[in-house]
């Protein structure tokens, strides 16, 4: 992990197929197809090596972006839970009523 600190390794790593990877892969593929069409080549059948390379680069970037995103959200959650733990008076337990107590008695008129 290049930009991630050591503690990020405690988090479960994202799967090979993950949201960001798929999206960036598709974007890479769209870029390659656009490159083909702007150079007046058949969009899908030409430059397959270029399409494969762009999809791969997008997938790679997406995987590392997902790892970074997971770490950022995990730190936010940790800080939030730590704050809640240190300030219990700001988070009182609300008393919960069941629906039976709130709802008016039902008198069917048939």
């Amino acid at each position: 992990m290049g930009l991630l600190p050591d503690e990020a390794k405690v988090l479960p790593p994202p799967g090979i197929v993950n949201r960001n990877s798929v999206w960036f892969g598709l974007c890479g593929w769209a870029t390659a197809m656009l490159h083909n069409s702007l150079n007046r080549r058949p969009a899908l059948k030409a430059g397959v090596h270029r399409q494969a390379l762009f999809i791969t680069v997008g997938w790679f970037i997406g995987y590392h972006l997902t790892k970074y995103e997971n770490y950022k959200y995990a730190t936010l959650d940790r800080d939030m839970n730590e704050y809640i733990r240190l300030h219990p008076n700001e988070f009182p337990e609300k008393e919960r009523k069941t629906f039976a107590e709130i709802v008016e008695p039902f008198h069917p008129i048939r």
Partner: protein
Amino acid sequence: MPLGRLLLRTSAVNKMISRNSFVASKPDPSKPNMLRVGLAFGSTAFLWALLFKQHSTDVHEYKTRNGLQ
């Protein structure tokens, strides 16, 4: 000789540095540049291998640090 005539001599050297329409060739799709294709596919394979290796390292690290294996 006027300078213009002298400068015309550079056209032989200039062909290596610049492309003009009398000299340049259009990219020919029927003759792919196999070096570039090979490099593209090679770097594709390399990146996939790197990704799978990184993933397996991450999974191993996760399991070790959380005492699952």
